[in-house]
């Protein structure tokens, strides 16, 4: 294919990605090395605010930004090098914690706390999703022809449901004396609070994610199962291979590319875990890397936001993703070289 034809085909897509993903990304990258601040001046201000019946007036010194001639706040942008990264990583404190051998002190630092959770979330849900997906695909494939349709339909529900609503509905089932918690309480005879300690919330978040994503894995694997050649299965049967051996030596290798595909997608999606933190309001106990970035970006009521630290933490998150993606990327590169 000639380059002009190629670019005509690919052009619109690339332009959109450049405009809405690459440019913001570059500006995030630049901002992570900069700090932009308004110039403040101290002024004496009298403020009168309403009470229930009468006003209270106070005179106080306030720091107000200086307004320029165009009526906009005068800001000053400085290059600060790696300062914002240092602020996010808090390497000094982290090092002290590590050399003192105190896990707890390390976990008191937001970034490391978030990294710990994000990694364990990603690495624990990954095998669970693949295993549940495979089991479901095999079970659906095993089921009678007439049952398959309805079962696939029901299985897909957790995947299609709007994440905000899925998280909320799980929330109602377990929060306080939600009916499932009440059920567990009756079964165990103890008072159970699922949202009172970190580990139960973490388990709930992971279960929710597995519930939400496993159907996707299952449906992809199920599609893959339809293309397993029955010839090789039959010859394995003649050779006396057991059910388990057939699974292990024929079906799984056939599905391997799909397992890698689902695994990679899941790796990317769960590394940026965020909705669960908001949906389960877990921020008092556990936080994730994307939530940390989001929290830096969220303006407080007085309008302050930590853009530089947010940018730095976003870039750090990205570095993490690239590291996680290196093995599959290397594989694609080898395939590419082999093919051409």
């Amino acid at each position, binding site marked *: *294919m000639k380059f002009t*034809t190629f670019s005509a085909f*690919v052009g*619109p*897509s*690339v332009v959109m*990605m450049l*405009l*809405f*993903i690459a440019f*913001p*990304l570059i500006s*995030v990258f630049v901002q992570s090395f900069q700090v932009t601040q308004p110039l403040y001046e101290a002024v004496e201000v009298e403020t009168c605010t309403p009470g229930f019946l009468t006003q209270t007036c106070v005179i106080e010194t306030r720091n107000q930004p200086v307004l320029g001639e165009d009526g906009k706040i005068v800001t000053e942008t400085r290059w600060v090098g790696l300062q914002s990264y240092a602020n996010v990583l808090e390497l000094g404190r982290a090092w002290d914690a590590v050399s003192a051998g105190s896990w707890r002190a390390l976990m008191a630092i937001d970034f490391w706390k978030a990294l710990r959770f994000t990694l364990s979330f990603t690495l624990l849900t990954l095998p669970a999703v693949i295993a549940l997906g495979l089991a*479901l695909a095999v079970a659906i494939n*095993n089921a009678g022809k007439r049952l398959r349709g309805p079962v696939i339909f029901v*299985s*897909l529900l957790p995947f*299609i*449901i*709007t994440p*905000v*609503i899925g998280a*909320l*509905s*799980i929330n*109602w*089932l377990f929060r*306080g004396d939600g*009916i499932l918690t*009440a059920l567990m309480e009756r079964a165990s005879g103890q008072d159970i609070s699922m949202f009172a300690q970190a580990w139960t919330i973490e388990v709930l978040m992971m279960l929710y994610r597995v*519930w939400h994503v496993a159907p996707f894995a299952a*449906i*992809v694997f199920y*599609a*893959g199962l*339809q*293309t397993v050649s029955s010839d090789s*299965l*039959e010859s394995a*049967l003649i050779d006396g291979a057991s*059910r388990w051996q057939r699974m292990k030596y024929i079906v799984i290798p056939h599905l391997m*590319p*799909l397992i890698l595909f689902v695994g990679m997608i899941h790796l*990317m999606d769960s*590394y*940026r875990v*965020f909705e669960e933190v908001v949906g389960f309001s877990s921020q008092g106990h556990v936080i994730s890397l*994307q939530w940390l*970035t989001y929290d830096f*970006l969220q303006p407080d009521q007085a309008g302050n936001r930590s853009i530089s630290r*947010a940018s730095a933490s976003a870039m750090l998150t*990205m570095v993490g*993703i*690239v590291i996680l*993606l290196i093995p599959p*990327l290397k594989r*694609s*590169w080898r395939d*590419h070289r082999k*093919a051409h």
Partner: protein
Amino acid sequence: MATALARQPVSLKLLSSGFLALWCLVAAFPILWIAVMSVKSPVDAFDDRFWNVVTGPATLANGSGVSVLGIALYLAACWGMVRLVARQMPSLIGQIPPRRRWIGWVLGAAVVTLGAALVLFVLLPTLLAVLNPLAGPLGRDVFGFTTEHYRTVWIERGFLRNFQNSMIVTCGVVLVSLTVGTLAGYGLARSGSTLAFWILIIALVFRALPHSVLVAGYLPVFINSAEILRPILGDAAPTLYGKPLAVIAVLVAINQPFTIWMLRSFFQNIPADLDEAARVDGCTHFQAFRRVIMPVMWPGVITTGLFSFLLGYNDFLVTSLLLDAQNQTMVPAIAGMFNRETTTTDQVVAVAAAVSITAPLFILVMVFQRQIVSGLTAGAVKG
């Protein structure tokens, strides 16, 4: 031989179907549960006793309930309608020439929705009002049941407008995303250049980006776009904030990486000989694409389209930030209902809205379920 493969010990069969049954329960329970909550009074909906939520004594005490006869009638009606639609609709639409078939689908969907609403909300209630007194104990209200919250959502809160906005955004995302994505996917599948490889890799990295980082950067640019673009476009420069089109563009861009990866693997599975042959016959690449590839690409496109649909329909981060109340979509509207200073009644109303937003997804999966599986079978196997 095939029968030998299919033969299984009973224990394995039991295990496998038991596992499926358990999974179906786990998969459907939360959704069924919010559906049950949405038809109860606030006191019942948030009760911590299982049976109180199911039977709804407080709702019943308020005088809204449904009898055993009523439940039977409603279930029968639903089942009958599903059967009717599943049997008749494809054959009816099959009679329409293929080019106009989409009109058939749209009309069909409209008729089905109207018909279902008519039967469920008009015909059956009138019928029940007559039959219940005649049916004795079977006709007595046993379960608390009220459609009041749905009425609040759709009539008083004007959820219909949010629904329309959602449809505009979602359909826009699907259409643009597929148009741009099929072209790119085809180009990438047929070009073995290193440039194509790097585009794919970079797209993969883009897919992995945390969205909140990108989205926060859009807001100031979108709000001030009129000022920014004025030197170029003059007074016609638009304020992009609050425009569904702008949101569609952003969502399409965010969705592009996944779309082009997906479609590329579909196109790779269509033998290149097909379009080569067309090229030999003197077609350009575009003509070959249109005449040879387009007729066979639909399974893959439908599956990819479905993923785009889910993304556009379910998005919260982008739509909540870049749209204002006049053109807000359903998801941020519901999140708003939950997050503002709510009373318990408001919460149940929001639950009803949450069930309403899930219904179209239900129908979508019901209709396209077969295509999803066949589309994935056709393409994604190569990974």
